[in-house]
């Protein structure tokens, strides 16, 4: 398709002639997961600025921003509006699976492509989405393998009451069984609920070896605080004995739980090592999304989504997540896997994969025997 000339136009930016490409940015700046939306937004806007300032790039991005304000029902109409009323064919956006699933029909109808930068629960491979953050074989599976080998196999599963928590805990039940452990309890809190006292009592009564946390936002912050209080009261529940482990807790939220997160674990594709930016895996993944998009538009010579999809997987991309490849079959990124322990508002890396782990969003290649045998490299 020869859309580029029609929709883009030329602007002077520094010396070289750059072709302007509009892209949608769809992150919530208020609501229960504001910090994650802000982290991704910072990553996307930072990468847009970097592309625009790069004299070797032939394109310049113009952000078309909309704010769904944490309301899941607002995402689809705003996505449709961007695709209908502006030249943008690509959206960087969505944090929750709920909002992503709302947006997909609009993308299908109007031929748009969503660049999704949050970790999610897998079991999806829409050709209208490029998945830049981890799915379960890149977060939950290595995390359970890590803790089962070091702390014990019995788990307590907690989550916010929606698809992320349900699906993550469903996978975790299988993983725990395959590791030879048992699930001591499984509890859900409504989104935004901070009454965690009963939950903590149940954890105390059942004394699992670790707690898998799939709570989000304020519920998670309340849980870490209450669990720290339990640990002060009963040393069996200190993080070096029975840690809380997560796949979505990043540096973006550590200031909100400090000092109660100390010693607990997360499994992430990126851990902040002191550089100026990005400072969390959400930010890094959104930054990488824009970089890969810029590479692909330059390689395809157009921003037409079909053409962009064709060239996505052709070569590795130098991004904020490191050198990453996109798998053509699933449109998911191959990513590093890092297990970090909270120290202040940072993570210490405990273990990391050798190179990138190929995406397997449907866990079609999950092998219990290989998983529960150590395979990651020990850093310290």
């Amino acid at each position, binding site marked *: 398709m020869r859309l580029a000339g029609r929709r883009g136009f030329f602007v002077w930016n520094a010396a070289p002639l750059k072709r302007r490409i509009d892209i949608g940015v769809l992150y919530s700046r208020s609501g229960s997961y504001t910090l994650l939306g802000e982290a991704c937004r910072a990553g996307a806007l930072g990468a847009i600025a970097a592309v625009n300032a790069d004299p070797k790039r032939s394109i310049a991005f113009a952000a078309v921003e909309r704010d769904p304000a944490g309301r899941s029902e607002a995402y689809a109409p705003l996505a449709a509006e961007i695709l209908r009323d502006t030249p943008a064919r690509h959206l960087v956006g969505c944090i929750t699976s709920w909002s992503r699933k709302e947006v997909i029909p609009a993308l299908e109808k109007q031929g748009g492509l969503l660049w999704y930068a949050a970790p999610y629960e897998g079991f999806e*491979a*829409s050709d209208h989405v490029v998945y830049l953050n981890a799915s379960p074989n890149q977060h939950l599976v290595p995390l359970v393998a890590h803790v089962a080998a070091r702390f014990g196999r019995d788990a307590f599963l907690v989550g916010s009451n929606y698809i992320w928590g349900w699906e993550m805990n469903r996978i975790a039940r299988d993983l725990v069984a395959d590791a030879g452990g048992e699930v001591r309890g499984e509890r859900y809190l409504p989104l935004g609920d901070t009454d965690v006292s009963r939950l903590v009592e149940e954890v105390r009564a059942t004394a699992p070896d670790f707690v898998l946390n799939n709570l989000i936002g304020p519920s998670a912050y309340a849980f870490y605080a209450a669990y720290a209080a339990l640990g002060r009261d009963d040393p069996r529940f200190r993080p070096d004995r029975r840690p809380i482990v997560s796949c979505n807790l990043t540096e973006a939220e550590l200031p909100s739980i400090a000092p109660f997160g100390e010693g607990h674990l997360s499994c992430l594709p990126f851990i902040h090592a002191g550089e100026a930016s990005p400072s969390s895996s959400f930010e890094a993944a959104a930054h990488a999304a824009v970089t890969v998009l810029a590479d692909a538009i330059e390689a395809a010579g157009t921003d037409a989504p079909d053409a962009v999809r064709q060239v996505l997987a052709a070569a590795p991309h130098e991004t904020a997540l490191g050198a990453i490849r996109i798998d053509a079959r699933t449109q998911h990124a191959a990513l590093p896997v890092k297990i970090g322990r909270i120290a202040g508002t940072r993570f210490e890396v405990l273990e990391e994969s050798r190179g990138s782990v190929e995406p397997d969003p449907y866990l079609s290649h999950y092998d219990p025997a290989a998983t529960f045998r150590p395979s990651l490299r020990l850093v310290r």
Partner: protein
Amino acid sequence: MSRRARIPNLGGARAVVLHRPHPGIEALARQLGAIGLEVTEAWPDLPASAVGADFLFFDVDLGFDEQFPWAPGEAPMPLVALIGSEAPGRIEWALAQKADAQIVKPVGSAGVYSALLIARRAFDERRRLAAEIASLRERVAERQTVVRAVVALSSRTKDEDQAYAQLRALAMSWQVTLEEAARRVVDLQSAEGSHERPRRA
């Protein structure tokens, strides 16, 4: 029967798509590949290797009985119907094949994974029920044999209850079903009878 939820293991499963090349089903092979299946496309003839496939997707619009090397409804794997025209005759034909799930064309990213899981579950359930029905039918057909065996045994015991208990004990010691034990008893009885007859004559 309790069935623990498991991570559905589809990696390396083989799917055959019986459909002529068409833009409306392009997304199907892509999606099956993304899920981790090996895909073979065929039209109009099924390759011989299709008999060993784990799933068969078939075109309802242009499909016909002779494409399949098995009688209608007796496919050895889960079937997923690819429905374009919803003409009642075509739906009826798909039903006669005993499709376990369906996808409406044009195929998109959504629907393929759920069709796989639904088809496999429905197929397994259908097979389990068929085996159970066959075994029940066999038992029903042997009712008369059981009656004859109990009558034969009761000639040596006090009453029919004892005869029935004895038949069960025989089945257990021979490690066969009650019906099979009854058949053996009846066979022995008639063998004895055939020996006896000449002496009496």
